């Protein structure tokens, strides 16, 4: 018998900002994991308060938003414990703007609580663990949409320990790219959520 509990996609809920700015993203990513892999995955995601130890039950956490981020002291303590114990926090800048409020505050909070973010090499295992992305993080259709910084962000940022990703940070706005109903994948030539599947597989196997 295989007693492995199904994977549950968890979104971090924090006091400042708009943590729930991509409401369709969890369901879409869950659909992709179930569609492309044989991993056991819970059909519903959860939103867990970052100020609660409940967050420690989900070793992969997704965090997004547009607004300035300032973690409360309790959120900061839980976040530090989460990372020290081996959790992987994925932060996506919903503004895709390196000069935006979310980017400036979120990266500063990560630096203050954990460590500075540094570019993740584009040949990292994350980009080949299931689907292969030879050029690193896939470009999103939102990066050049006239909003944000209007840049294609060549690399993701990360905090790593012994090559294990502790915090992964993206300016590519996957929050917008993946925020659609799964049924709409049939109209797309290439499913943009494939990189999200890599993220889940990487978290479960590394």
């Amino acid at each position: 018998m295989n007693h492995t509990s199904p994977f549950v996609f968890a979104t971090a809920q924090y006091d400042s900002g708009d943590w729930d700015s991509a409401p369709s993203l969890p369901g879409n990513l869950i659909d992709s994991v179930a569609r492309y892999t044989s991993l056991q995955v819970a059909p519903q995601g959860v939103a867990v308060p970052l100020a609660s130890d409940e967050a420690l039950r989900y070793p992969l956490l997704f965090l997004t938003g547009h607004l300035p981020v300032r973690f409360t002291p309790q959120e900061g303590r839980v976040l530090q414990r989460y990372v020290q114990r081996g959790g992987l926090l994925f932060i996506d800048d919903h503004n895709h703007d390196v000069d935006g409020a979310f980017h400036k505050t979120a990266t500063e909070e990560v630096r203050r609580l954990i460590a500075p973010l540094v570019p993740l090499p584009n040949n990292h295992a994350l980009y080949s663990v299931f689907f292969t992305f030879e050029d690193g993080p896939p470009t999103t259709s939102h990066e050049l949409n006239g909003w944000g910084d209007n840049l294609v962000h060549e690399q993701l940022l990360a905090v790593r320990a012994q090559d294990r990703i502790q915090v992964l940070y993206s300016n590519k706005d996957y929050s917008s790219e993946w925020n659609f109903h799964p049924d709409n994948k049939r109209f797309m030539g290439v499913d943009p959520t494939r990189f999200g599947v890599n993220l889940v597989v990487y978290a479960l196997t590394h």
Partner: protein
Amino acid sequence: MRSPTSTPDASSRRVIAERVARVLAVMALLMAWWLTGRPSAPDTAARDPIVDAADPVRLAEWVADPSRSTVHASLQAVPGATVRALLHAASEAGLSVSWSAHDSATSLAPLALSVAPLADPSGGMTARVSAPSGSPLALADSLGWLDSAVVAKGGIAWTLEGNPRELTVASGTSVAVATPLAIAPIKRVRLFAAPGWEARFAMRALEDAGWSVDASFSIAPRVSVTAGAPARIDTAHYAAVVAIDSTAWSSAAAIAAFVRSGGGLVLFPGAASGSAFAGVRTGTVGTPSAGIPGALALALPREGLLLRPITSLRGDAVVLERSTRPGNAVALAARRVGLGRVLQVGWENSWEWRMLGGDNAVAAHRNWWRGLLHRTARVSAARTVASMPLPGDAAPYADLVARLGAPSAAAPPSDGPSPTPAPPPSLLFAIAAFALLTEWWSRRLRGER
């Protein structure tokens, strides 16, 4: 000058006393002259030498003397290897060699030291000492003292980091020395698990402890993600296999063969259930019992985990841990299979301990995994030492007994009567001088010359 109180009777007694003093002086002088002229008795010395472990040359001269047929060693301490070998050689050469403790039996306390390498990539070893309960022990390596302890229940064990070249344990005058085997441990572990948090954190704990973990995770039909470089399951590649769930079932035959040839197997409930590992497991997997809420952060964190107890234990299984829940179900049990060992675990989802446990949960979880491997993993092919005919320096008292036999209750009888202890000549001269001075003083007091 006469004493005014003197009487005729008193005078005659005084004269008698003076003559007795003179005779005593003469006898003392004669005895001293006889003792100094008497030849020494070689039998006494040969029969009762006190062996000085620091002076084996002198002992060699004693036992090499062709005039001796017996040697009795009166030992103040358990002698060193050279002296033990010398006495053994003398015994083998036909000399009748016996021994006994010189003064008290406590000075010859039995002491034994054994050293076994730990199944750990970072090295380390377990030093086990046997000695009488209450004995103070001091453990040292070539660089100095490491620790001290008092023996309880006849023995004590130390787990040591690093790989000292030589270990010494001392108790009173007894010293035992052991040289650990120089080994090159196999540092690889093969993990069988479905992709999930338990696999992720088992790998982390083992890798943080220094192990290289090889695994192959099935992600989709015909798509697997590998960690490390999975190789053929044999004792040349792996020290142990960790089987977490049913993904190991398809390799059960190879894993069982691996264990029989000396490998270790850590078997979790998901793998132990079913029939694939029925031939090697320690028992069957019982009804699950949910973890105690909140216990993960308390003193017994594993009680916060799901437990699938080990039931219907085999006769040769050894219970290593029981749950504290009602019924005290078996949570950890081990058994030998062929040349290897199987450790069956009843706990599940240990990753929750690491993520939700107390402040030291990461280290505690890692050390728990490390301990599972210590108990099962194969150390090296050189682990079994060729049997030695004698215990040697690791157990000097046992070595002494093995070489020379049990201690004698007393020294063996000599050919002639035992010599009477004689006072030293200096004492006899002092007695003679005192007697003559007394006699002279008494005569002067009564006016004689």
